[in-house]
């Protein structure tokens, strides 16, 4: 199965990953009460939940802020309910916002907002396996961080 995954107008190259699937399409339908992330990516030591957002107007952009944690939490719950949590791998939640002109300051704010809503205000209080960190990117900051590992390109 191809590890090049597309979501909206973005194409992610997860060739180097152990496994890369479109999660909300393939797995979550069996649990309708859950809202899955777009991709589930498996690396040697990490599992990534990746969610792509493309808010189209001010109202949706503002609402996105308060809702974007849900897919990550639900995806964790899905793995947990299906006894698929790998205790040896870290769970990481990444949100990519398809909005080029969003500033780094806004991304920092959204990352903190996301961490708080995911429940990562104080990680020391979490004793069991859970999402370990959450970050928000745009296309440029994603590529700056992951260019050699899993770059993202715009589909023209």
């Amino acid at each position: 199965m191809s590890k090049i995954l597309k979501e909206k107008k973005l194409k992610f190259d997860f060739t180097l990953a152990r496994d890369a699937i479109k999660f909300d399409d393939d797995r979550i339908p069996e649990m309708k009460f859950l809202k899955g992330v777009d991709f589930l990516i498996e690396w040697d030591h990490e599992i990534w939940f990746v969610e792509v957002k493309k808010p189209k107007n001010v109202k949706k952009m503002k609402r996105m802020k308060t809702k974007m944690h849900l897919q990550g939490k639900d995806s964790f719950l899905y793995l947990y309910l299906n006894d698929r949590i790998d205790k040896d791998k870290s769970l990481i939640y990444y949100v990519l916002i398809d909005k080029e002109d969003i500033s780094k300051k806004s991304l920092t704010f959204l990352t903190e907002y996301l961490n708080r809503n995911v429940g990562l205000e104080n990680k020391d209080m979490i004793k069991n396996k859970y999402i370990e960190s959450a970050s928000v990117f745009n296309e440029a900051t994603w590529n700056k961080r992951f260019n050699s590992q899993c770059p993202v390109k715009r589909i023209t």
Partner: protein
Amino acid sequence: MIESLEIKNFTCFEDIKIDFVPGINIFIGDNGTGKTHILKLLYTIPSSKTKVSKDETGYIDEISYLLEVESIFLSESNALTRKSSSKKEEIKKFVLIFNIDGKPFTVTNEQHNWLASLNCDINGVYIPAKDMLANAPYFLSTYKKYDMHFEKVYADVLLNSYLPPLRKLNDRQKAWMKKIEDVIGGEIAIKGEKFFLKSEVGEIDFMLVSEGWRRLAHLWLLIRCGLLDQGTELCWDEPETNLNPSMFPVLVDVLLELQEMGVQMFIATHSYYLLKRFDLQRKDHSVKFYSLYEKNKKEGVKCDPADTYLELSHNKIDEENEKIYDLTVENELFKKK
């Protein structure tokens, strides 16, 4: 170290108790939530120490303590009692309960408890939000002679800053001073009552040195005279004042190292960047955050502790960040080009 402070009916506080960590205690809160009052109260303990014995253990009694509170707050003790207290029968009385090195010290401004006393070996330094070093000449001599309307902390700042260097500085102290020198561009010299920055281009009067650098220079002076050492309490009101956030890494590094050495710190801040700098290093250091907030006038100011920045409740800085984000979304991200 100061382990806890309980405040009843004092200024904006109705009834709160705060447990401290031995390292860095950081207070946030809207204007008027009593951050500076807490810092000043904590400073009253080392500053009211009298009768220093041979082993340098100070002794505090209630009467001298109350006089110190009055000179630090520049108010009579009765005026410091909370005005809108709901407990009318107690309206004239405030109560302060400190827990210091496992020993309680209780003071009230109404019924003098002549037995209230404490042996204490804590030394203290208070750095106010306003810089004093540039305006130092003749301040102390005038302050000593005249009844000037200045809180005692301003005189203490200068008394501490004029102290001569230690006969022998250790390697860590030298390294911290070097770190600061690299940023401000030289050492500090004192001539008469004036401070100068000894830079490559010559001696620069402190009046001409940027106020942000003067904050760091102040820290340099306190390290040089050995005041910031194990068993010292440092109260610093808004260290970020006039300091560009790019200078924060040096400031935070030095403060974290001082804390490792045994300096207990109490910091009040409005700076997101300063908070985050501490938050990012909290795993390896003793750091705790406190949010001061007023739900309603009747209950007075309350305090919520937090282990992390994200855990802070009633965080006005974060609320402002959110407003700025929302405004950016509204005004910039979807603006028609």
